[in-house]
C-alpha cells in the first residue's frame, strides 16, 4: 500500500502564550488536492510551516512523502515546494535572476530551459527581466507560482494561493487543477476562500482554535450540516460554541 503524501499524528505547537496547533491528526493521499480551512488564527499556516520544516512542533509526528520530516527533511525538501503571498521574492532582483537562483538551489539541470517553459506556461515571459518589486499583485502571484513549480514538486503546499482579484484567482485555480492532473502531484493548501476550496479540493479539514473540528469532501460537509455551500458550513463552524465543536477523530 502506498503511504499517503502527508501523515500528521497528534501534532502540537505550543507558544508561551497560546496553543497554535492542538493535537491534530490527518493524512493526505497522493495525487489529492486537500485544504486546511479555517479563520485567522485557526492554525493553518502553523501546520503548513511545520510540514515545510520551517517550524519545529512541540509534539507529534510528521511524515512527508514517506520520510520523517522532523529528522530527514533534507531528503524530502527537493521534492516539495511552497507559495505564499506573505513571503516575498527579493524585490531588487529580476524575476529571471530570482528563478535562476532557486533553480540552482534545487540543483535543476537545464535551468534556463525550465524557466523559459514555465514563463510560457504561466505567461510571465514579458516581465522575466523586470525587478520582482515592480510587478503588480497578479504578476507577483504568477511569479511566486513559477518559483513553487520550478522543481516540479510532488507535494505543493500553498498558503492562500488565490487571495487576489477574481480573474487572477480563477486563473491560478485553473492552472493548479491542470498541474495536478498532469503530474499526479499532491496539493495541500491553507485557505479561507470557500469558493477556491470547493472547486479544487476533494478533502477538507475544518480548523478552529488549533483543532480539526470536522473533515470530509466539500459535498459531504455541506450535506452533513444541511447547508447549500461550504461558506455556510464554515460560518456555522466558526460561530459555533466550543462544546459543539469537539475535534473529529
Amino acid at each position, binding site marked *: 500500500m502506498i503511504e499517503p503524501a502527508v501523515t500528521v499524528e497528534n501534532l502540537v505547537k505550543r507558544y508561551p502564550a497560546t496553543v497554535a496547533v492542538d493535537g491534530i491528526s490527518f493524512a493526505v493521499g497522493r495525487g489529492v488536492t486537500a485544504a486546511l480551512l479555517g479563520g485567522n488564527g485557526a492554525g493553518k499556516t502553523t501546520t503548513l510551516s511545520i510540514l515545510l520544516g520551517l517550524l519545529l512542533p512541540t509534539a507529534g509526528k510528521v511524515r512527508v512523502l514517506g520520510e520523517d520530516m522532523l529528522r530527514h527533511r533534507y531528503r524530502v525538501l527537493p521534492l516539495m515546494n511552497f507559495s505564499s503571498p*506573505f513571503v516575498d521574492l527579493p524585490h531588487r532582483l529580476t524575476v529571471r535572476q530570482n528563478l535562476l537562483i532557486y533553480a540552482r538551489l534545487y540543483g535543476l539541470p537545464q535551468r534556463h530551459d525550465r524557466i523559459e517553459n514555465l514563463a510560457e506556461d504561466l505567461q510571465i515571459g514579458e516581465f522575466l527581466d523586470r525587478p520582482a518589486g515592480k510587478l503588480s499583485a497578479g504578476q507577483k502571484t504568477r511569479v511566486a507560482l513559477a518559483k513553487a513549480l520550478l522543481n516540479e514538486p510532488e507535494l505543493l503546499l500553498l498558503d492562500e494561493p488565490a487571495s487576489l482579484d477574481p480573474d487572477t484567482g480563477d486563473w491560478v485555480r485553473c492552472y493548479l487543477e491542470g498541474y495536478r492532473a498532469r503530474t499526479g502531484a499532491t496539493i495541500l493548501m491553507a485557505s479561507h476562500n470557500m469558493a477556491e476550496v470547493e472547486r479544487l479540493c476533494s478533502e477538507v479539514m475544518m480548523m478552529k482554535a488549533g483543532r480539526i473540528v470536522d473533515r470530509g469532501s466539500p459535498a459531504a460537509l455541506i450535506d452533513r450540516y444541511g447547508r447549500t455551500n461550504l461558506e455556510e458550513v464554515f460560518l456555522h463552524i466558526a460561530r459555533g460554541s466550543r462544546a459543539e465543536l469537539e475535534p473529529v477523530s
Partner: protein
Amino acid sequence: MNRRGFSAGRVWAMLLRYLYLLRSSWPRTLELTYWPTLQMLIWGFMSQFLYVNSSYVFRAFGVLLAAVMLWDVLFRGQLGLSMSFLEEMWARNLGHLFVTPLRPYEWVLSLLSMSLIRVLLGMMPAALLAIPLYHYSIFSMGLPLVAFFAVLLVMGWALGMAICGLILRQGMGAEGLAWTVVFTLSPISAVYYPVSILPAWLQHASWALPSTYVFEGMRAVLFSGIFRADYLLTALALDVFYLTLGAGAFLFAFHDARRRGALLQMGE
C-alpha cells in the same frame, strides 16, 4: 539532484544572489569603496603631518595608514557578512530559502564568501590609491600582510556570525548592532597605539583579541622588520575559538528561530 550533504552549487547560488544584488545598485557598490578611500585620505594626510612632527610616525611612515586599512579589513569583514544577512531579512526571504534544500551552513559559507568579496572591493582601491598619493604601499609588508588580513577577516566573520545570531534571536530591532558592535573593540585592539598604553587591567582584555596581536605584529614588522610568529599563532588560535563561538551562536539562533516560527515572520 543532490539530496544529501554539502552542495557547492547551492553555495554558489546564494553567492550569485548577493552578487546580483550588488550589481543591481551602483550607489551601493560605490559605497563599498567610498569609506575606506576617505579614511585612507584623512590618515594619509595626517601621517604626512605627523611624519615631521612625531617621532612615532617618523619611525615608519605607513604605521597609521597600514593600521587604518587593516582595521577596515576587520570592520568590512564583519559588515560584509552582516549586510548580506540583513538583505535576506529586509527581503523577508528566509521562508523561501529554507524550504529549499539549502543548509544553514551552506548559507553561512556564501555569506563568508561575499564578505571576502566586499572587503577586497572596498580595500583594493584605497590601498592602490595610497601608492601614488603618499608613496606608501601596504603590499610592501609582503607575506605578513596576508597573515594579518586573514586573521582580521576571520575575526570579522566570527563577530558577524554572532551579530547575525543575535538579530535572528531579537529581530530587526537589533540590526543596528551590525554597524556598531565592532567599534567597541577598536579602543582595546591597539589599532593606532601600542597595547602598553592601555591601563594594566584593560591590557588583559586586549590580549584576548586576535586583532591586538595583528596590530602589535604589524608594528613589529614596520618598526623593526621582525615578524612575530608567536603573535600570529596566538591570533590564529583565538580566531578558531571565536569562530567556533560565532558559528555556534548563529546555528543555535537559527535552530531557535525554527522553534519560535521566526523564519516565516522575520523581516521589516
